[in-house]
């Protein structure tokens, strides 16, 4: 034994032994720290643990580009949410169950940083990365189109930061591209189809023949598939579908094909400028006064927004049906509290994009309070299958299986110019479709949420 030991010393092992001993000693000395300091029990993920007396949220919205208007409204809502989280008011009084105190989150004052997604996936990721790496945000939220939301959702999942989606309507966001760290409050194309098709068949009859014009990108495709599936379930048939390039501004050639077909309903699976242009073209062609198969030719716009309706003009959208997630004219307590505080702050009512962003911020903050920590896996678990009321749209479930909010939706109709009472009154609510009708089985879409702890 002694021989071996002396051998070790000769070959320089003793120094290593000393180091080993020292490190064991150091760990031993530090052991009480692990148990006394609670924070040490959960390892660091993303920007957890939060240091200092402030917690930072990252608001990444389109400030330039095609969706800049929506982005600006989203930012207004975010600022209002921060104000309410720190000082009380708004939906803090109506959200149930809620542990929000109006005195920051978990005793920390909420601050924020903003970024510009430029409606460009690459730019949005670089901007989100800045917030995460440099500004140490605990959560990122925003976005006004699905591609951007999905791009950021993947990034945030890799980096262990929770991403609360803004306006994104594609099935993919909580379908094949769903992520454990991504959450969507807004509804999706599948729910639009499910809610809208019965109303359409009630309104226009169950023997209609539809022709689809579809924006040729992922959202358009999912929207078209859902509309076709659910209208056909109502007894409609589909005459055709044309994929229109995203950059199209003149839809005459496609509309001519629709008019030459035997279809008596035109479904415009378009959003933003696309929808404004295609609808205006159709009206200019006199399609709304046309008779087909002995019935009036009808136009349907599955996804409506106030900004789009304003762009198309109320003479053109008069009577046209579509869906929205929320509208400022809703009379429930949560919506009223939000609209009142928004109007008091900015002087005009919020858009549905603003609503979803505001609610997302509050829900995240509330989940932190409920979990009692900013530790992301605990916050995710608090959000999953969280059932709440008082945020507009009645009782809402944040479904754990795919992180999609299940809530009632609105079927909207364009207001005629004479019925319009203000500049914000382009759409009226025809029907509130209840949550059970809009609900669906999450397993119809592929994709995995992934682990609670990032790899």
């Amino acid at each position, binding site marked *: 034994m002694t021989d071996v030991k002396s051998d070790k010393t000769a070959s320089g092992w003793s120094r290593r032994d000393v180091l080993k001993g020292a490190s064991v000693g150091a760990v031993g000395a530090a052991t009480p720290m692990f148990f006394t300091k609670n924070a040490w029990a959960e390892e660091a993920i993303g920007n957890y643990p939060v240091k200092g007396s402030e917690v930072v949220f990252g608001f990444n919205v389109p*400030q*330039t580009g095609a969706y*800049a208007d929506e982005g*600006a409204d989203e930012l207004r809502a975010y600022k209002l949410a921060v104000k309410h989280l720190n000082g009380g008011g708004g939906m803090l009084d109506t959200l149930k169950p809620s542990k929000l105190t109006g005195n920051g989150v978990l005793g920390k004052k909420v601050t924020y*940083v*903003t*970024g*510009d997604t430029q409606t*460009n*996936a*690459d*730019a949005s*990721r*670089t*901007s989100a*990365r*800045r917030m995460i*790496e*440099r500004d140490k945000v605990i959560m990122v939220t925003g976005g006004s189109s*699905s*591609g951007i939301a*999905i*791009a950021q959702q*993947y*990034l945030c999942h*890799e980096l262990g930061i929770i991403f609360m989606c803004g306006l994104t309507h*594609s099935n*993919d966001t909580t379908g094949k*591209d769903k992520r454990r760290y991504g959450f969507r409050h807004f509804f999706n194309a599948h729910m639009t189809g499910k809610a809208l098709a019965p109303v359409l068949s009630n309104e226009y009859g169950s023997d209609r023949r539809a022709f689809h014009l579809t924006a*040729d*990108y*992922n*959202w358009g495709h999912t929207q078209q598939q859902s509309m076709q599936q659910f209208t056909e379930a109502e007894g409609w048939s589909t005459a055709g579908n044309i*994929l229109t*390039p*995203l950059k199209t501004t003149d839809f005459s050639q496609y509309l001519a094909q629709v008019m030459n077909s035997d279809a008596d309903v035109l479904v415009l699976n378009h959003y933003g400028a696309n929808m404004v242009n295609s609808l205006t073209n159709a009206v200019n062609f006199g399609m709304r006064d046309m008779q087909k198969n002995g019935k009036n030719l009808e136009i349907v716009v599955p996804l409506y927004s106030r900004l789009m309706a304003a762009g198309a003009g109320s003479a053109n959208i008069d009577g046209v049906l579509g869906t929205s997630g929320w509208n400022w004219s809703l009379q429930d307590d949560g919506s009223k509290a939000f609209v009142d505080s928004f109007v008091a702050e900015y002087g005009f009512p919020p858009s549905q994009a603003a609503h979803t962003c505001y609610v997302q911020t509050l829900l995240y903050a509330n989940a932190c309070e409920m979990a009692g920590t900013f530790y992301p896996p605990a916050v995710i678990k608090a959000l999953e299958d969280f059932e709440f009321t008082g945020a507009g749209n009645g009782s809402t479930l944040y479904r754990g299986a795919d992180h999609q909010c299940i809530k009632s939706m609105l079927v909207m109709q364009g207001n005629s110019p004479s019925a319009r009472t203000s500049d914000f009154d382009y759409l009226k609510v025809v029907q509130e479709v209840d949550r059970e009708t809009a609900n669906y089985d999450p397993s119809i879409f592929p994709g995995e949420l992934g682990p609670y702890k990032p*790899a």
Partner: protein
Amino acid sequence: MNTQQSFFERNRAVIIFAIIALLMPLWFPLIGGYQGLDTKIMIMCILVVGFDLLLGYTGYLSFGHAAFFGIAAYTTGIMLKDFSGQVIPAIVVAVVLSTLVSVVIGLLTLKRTGIYFSILTLAFAEMFHAMAMAMLQEWTGGENGLTGMMTPMLGSIKMQGAVVFYFSAIIAIVMFYLAKRIERSPVGLMMRAIKCNQTRLEYTGINARKYKLLTFIISAFYAAIAGALMVVYEPFVGHEFLGWHQSGEFVLMSVIGGVGTLVGPMLGAGFMLYFENVLSADIGEHWLLFLGIIFMAVVIFMPGGFMEAISRLQARFNNK
């Protein structure tokens, strides 16, 4: 003529660049930078150096370099998704494919010069963009972008954070060194001759087309390496990588830094990305306006970009 100069003297620019680049993680956070952005700057440096060989030395303004950048990015993405997480085979396949595409595009577009060449390259890039958005959606993910790749690996090392930065920085240094070698080589002389007076060069019996095509391919090669690295840095490919906006950004970076200097475009790339991601947050929604004003000021008062400003300052110091 260079034989008297030592290795250090000949490669002073490369060595200075190497020092600045490798120490970037130390000094960049001091001015508001962050990890991730430094990697992106390195990647863009690679691209604009190659772009400058075409624009600054040969005088051909390509408005379609996003095509080579994007094709390499998509190929890398598909390789990482469906083949393996190893980055080396992915980068090699991507760069080879993208360079082959550049041979075809080069043959078709280099028959024209000036604005016609620019528009032709733009048209090709837009064609690829449209294909990625519509026809090839199954492969590219269309508007949503290409996602769901395996974690990029180099051997058994995860390509994340500082590893990707040093990987990109070393490649950037090597590529810059190669560009400097090309600049000094007979090919570099031909490039400058083409820019100076192509007709006269042809009268001396030299096949200018051969050199133009070679330069075009070299510059596409640089763009392809940058595109492939972009996906190694972040396992995501957006359709924007192929868009004209991206091509335009390469041009802006080069012009703002000073074309025909190799160093200038790298300065421009660093400035643009820094401005877009760091200063924009302080300026707010009007940051594009400020960028536009800076760009106009550079073009009007310093057509040589930042490099002209630097040489003017140097001249002033020397006069004193």
